[in-house]
């Protein structure tokens, strides 16, 4: 019974940890706007956590610069299982306008398995919420596989 309770609820309270890997701040602002009264992602249980230890979903923005890469990987590895990695905006997926620059190590998927990509520069809040709910579903599946 306890196991089922846990498995059922996992998708309902995904906590986010946001990593800025060299972003221009556009996506960061959009992510915060998701929590404002207009979109209010908290109704789905989303919450911004302060520490990766509390998080379920890691949201990475920015093109993953060479400086930030080890730090991003370290922070991601500190998130307890089950976890979900979401790239937000085009930068961590393709490098966007920064592609080919000497200081870019991205895309992120070269280094860690990414679960959800939310495209756009910056993505619309609706798209972000959609991507996050998808991530929450994947999270639930991962939790189910853990048993």
């Amino acid at each position, binding site marked *: 019974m*306890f196991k089922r*309770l*846990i*498995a*059922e*609820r*996992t998708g*309902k*309270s995904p*906590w986010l940890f946001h990593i800025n890997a060299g972003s221009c701040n556009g996506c960061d602002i959009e992510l915060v706007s998701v929590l404002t*009264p207009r979109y*209010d992602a*908290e*109704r*789905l*249980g989303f919450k*911004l*956590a*302060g*520490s990766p*230890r*509390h998080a*379920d979903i890691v949201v990475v923005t920015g093109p993953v610069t060479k400086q930030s890469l080890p730090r991003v990987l370290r922070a991601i590895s*500190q998130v*307890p*299982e*089950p976890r979900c990695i979401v790239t937000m905006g085009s930068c961590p997926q393709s490098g966007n306008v920064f592609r080919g620059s000497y200081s870019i190590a991205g895309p992120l998927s070269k280094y860690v398995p990414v679960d959800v990509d939310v495209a756009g520069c910056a993505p619309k809040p609706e798209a972000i919420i959609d991507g996050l709910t998808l991530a929450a579903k994947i999270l639930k599946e991962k*939790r189910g596989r*853990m048993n």
Partner: protein
Amino acid sequence: MTIVIDALQYLGYVLIFPGFLFCFLAGMLLCGIDRKLVAKMQKRVGPPILQPFYDFFKLCGKETIIPAAAERNTFMLSPLVGLAALVVIQLFIPVFGFTAFSGIGDIIVILYLLLVPALAMILGGAASGSPYAGVGLSREMVTIISCELPLVLVLLAVAKTVGGAIGTGLCFSLSQIAEYQEVNGSLITKISMLPAAAAMLLLIPGETGSHPFDAAEAETEICEGLLAEYSGAPLGVFKLSHAVKMLSLTSLFVALFLGGLGTGILALDAVLLFLLCALITAASISFVHAFTARLKIEQIFKYYWTVVSLLAAVSLALAWYGL
């Protein structure tokens, strides 16, 4: 035979009402109501009322990472001790006429027992070895110091008022305070107790560490401070402790100032207690939360030792001269 029945009865008190199960359900519900209310006040839809339960169960299902720098036993045990101490506090606080364990403790004991959960959290955080926890610990302790003076004044004022009325001079026993209110009506109807009640309302957010007095757990600046390294089930237990602490403090408020409203039927009383607690939560935690920003730690200290202490001191002075 009677011993067995007695033992079972007390076990029931500890495990079901007003102990563990009641604390769990009511505390989590209070927390959910709080979050919903804050959302409503900010014109949001807000999370479902059962959201704290979801959070708790999710956390139970997650991996628990013990950092290499942490002292393992303290790190793992302190959440459990903190929660147990909170449940025990709840056992001392009378539910109107009914007290599960009346002969064990009084208000000074409550004052000290309220330190135990905070202490458990502090030690757990300290044992994790994180520097964020170090900052959080420092702030948490200063918050405790800040709340201590007004809380002491409030409790002494209540002790003097009830003691003066029943003729023993002073009365520290919670069950006697409850009995007095059963007979003479709620203490809040006394003029001398009004400032004390106001002070207590202002104290509840500080004691529970909710907005705007949550400098110790500021998630945006010090990564939730003491909890920075906690994950999984221990974190869930801490979140539960936070919820139960809300219940404990609000029901302490009910026991001190709103006693005597009980119906005498335990089940009804429990529901009434919960409703009153929800009301107080709405007034003292949610309302303040919705429109304030986080205070700096030295501001918290200054605020409690001046404004709130003054309110409580006025109450004590009034009680001293028998109003």
